[in-house]
């Protein structure tokens, strides 16, 4: 009997909820909170790349747009975090649609290049629109969340729980998405777009929905990141992050929701665990990734591809 996802979500995430009770090390919790933001991002990127087959190489830009959206709304209009959070998601989604509408018509490699370009343009725009974004110095003094009178501070524990709740919510909704007509349409497009459209799936529309959901999640993660750092700078949203997020999705297993989370956890925590090896840690990290791709190319939780080529 397979466990239903409404049970999977609490079952897999509850153990993490206990961590702050056992381990009060601030550094550990801080790392885990950052990793949690990676998990959110990987889950979001997975909707586009893993489920729908839309290779997005500029995902960090949507994360950045969310972060700046909350930062600006907070600094200029005094919006509190809980209003800024959905705003960040929506603004990021809007940019997702804007960049998606022209570029989703092109396939595969071309979409990858378009999103790569968009990612770079966004970072450069953050860097140069000094009047709005503060240029390379970024925006400072972004407000932390206040939860029913409880003020978040440098203490990472409340952020840890905030991120955990967001992960649970995202995972739950994504499972519902996958187990639906739209979810099947997304995968059908990944498998064979032409056949999907001949079966009545309006491919452009459905791909845009996937792109929108994907960038919405990035925006949400961005707002959390901005409120945690209280400062946003352009270099937090560079191409290296986009590639790292993609590596997380691939490592976890394309199209698998828990896979994306596990990939993010592994790639987020490993460099910290390898700190003992000092200079060699990135070498070991890279080596492990190569071994992984040789021995388990479908990713940690990915299903083996169906045997190909019958005709």
């Amino acid at each position, binding site marked *: 009997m397979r466990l239903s996802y409404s049970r999977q979500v609490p079952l897999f995430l509850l153990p993490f909820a206990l961590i702050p009770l056992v381990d009060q090390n601030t550094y550990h919790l801080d790392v885990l909170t950052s990793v949690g933001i990676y998990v959110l991002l990987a889950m979001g990127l997975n909707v586009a790349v893993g489920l729908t087959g839309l290779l997005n190489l500029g995902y960090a830009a949507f994360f950045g747009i969310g972060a700046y959206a909350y930062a600006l709304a907070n600094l200029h209009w005094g919006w509190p975090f809980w209003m800024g959070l959905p705003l960040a998601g929506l603004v990021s989604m809007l940019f997702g649609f804007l960049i998606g509408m022209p570029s989703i018509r092109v396939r595969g490699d071309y979409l990858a290049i378009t999103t790569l370009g968009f990612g770079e343009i966004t970072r450069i725009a953050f860097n140069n629109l000094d009047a709005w974004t503060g240029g390379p110095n970024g925006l400072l003094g972004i407000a932390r969340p206040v939860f029913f009178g409880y003020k978040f501070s440098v203490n990472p524990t409340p952020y840890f729980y905030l991120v955990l709740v967001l992960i649970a919510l995202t995972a739950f909704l994504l499972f*519902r998405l996958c187990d*639906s*007509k739209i979810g099947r349409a997304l*995968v059908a497009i990944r*498998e064979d777009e032409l*056949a999907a459209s*001949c079966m*009545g799936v309006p491919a452009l529309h459905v791909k845009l929905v996937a792109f929108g959901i994907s960038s919405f999640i990035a925006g949400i993660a961005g707002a959390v990141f901005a409120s945690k750092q209280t400062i946003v700078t352009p270099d937090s949203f560079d191409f290296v992050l986009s590639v790292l997020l993609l590596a997380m999705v691939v490592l976890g297993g394309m199209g698998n929701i828990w896979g994306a989370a596990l990939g993010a956890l592994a790639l987020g925590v490993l460099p910290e665990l390898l700190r003992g090896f000092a200079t060699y840690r990135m070498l070991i990290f890279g080596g492990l990734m190569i071994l992984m791709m040789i021995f388990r190319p479908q990713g940690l939780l990915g299903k083996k591809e169906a045997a190909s080529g019958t005709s």
Partner: protein
Amino acid sequence: MALLEVRSVSKRFGGVQALKQVTFSVERGQIVGLIGPNGAGKTSFFNCVTGLVPIDEGQILFDDGSETLNGLPAHRVLEKGVARTFQNLRIFRNMTVLENVAVGFHARTRSGLWDAFARTPFFREEEKHIRQKSLEFLKFIGLEGLDGEVAGNLSYGSQKRVEIARALASDPKLLLLDEPVAGMNPSEKEELSSLVRRIRERGVAVLLIEHDMRVVMPLSEKVVVMDEGMMIAEGPPQKIKNDARVVRAYLGEA
């Protein structure tokens, strides 16, 4: 008027005239065979009808001329009631057999993203309906009990059946089959022929491209013959067999 009425359809790919003034019709509930040597333009014709390739000239009318299919994108053509299979299998390999068939319901169901997130009663009802109907279609094509299998792991013949079930799920009035028995052994061919007849009994008209004359001749009520993008003959199978132009197209000049 007919279910499908094709009026002087032409299509040119660069220097190649793929279709030249093709004109014929398919009646409701009729099985029509489309034959011709390789490269005659049969699959190009399917691609034009299903909106994958725009036509240069002519008209493709559907449902007694009440709908115009030319100019519509592929998913809208399916909505109108034309479903198809492909010459080279195009099933969703990494989805289960059931999911493959369920995709066929896309145009016939209405729940959206919010219904999926909120699991509204409407959504649950519709998903239950999709599942039930999909299982019925799997039974109909003879793949009962394989619903949970990953489609790509099925045998070639079974995959072809999945493709047909997926097309039937969209509740078409006209089904286009592109070489349904290619690569099958004689007993599989026999089974598929009877499946096509059973599909027609459901009130679905079938237009099939087929090279195997032993399959297409007994099955079809009407046969259309194409060669080099042109229709060279049309009529009942008996007449086609003895048509001099058809024999020439297949065997060459004596």
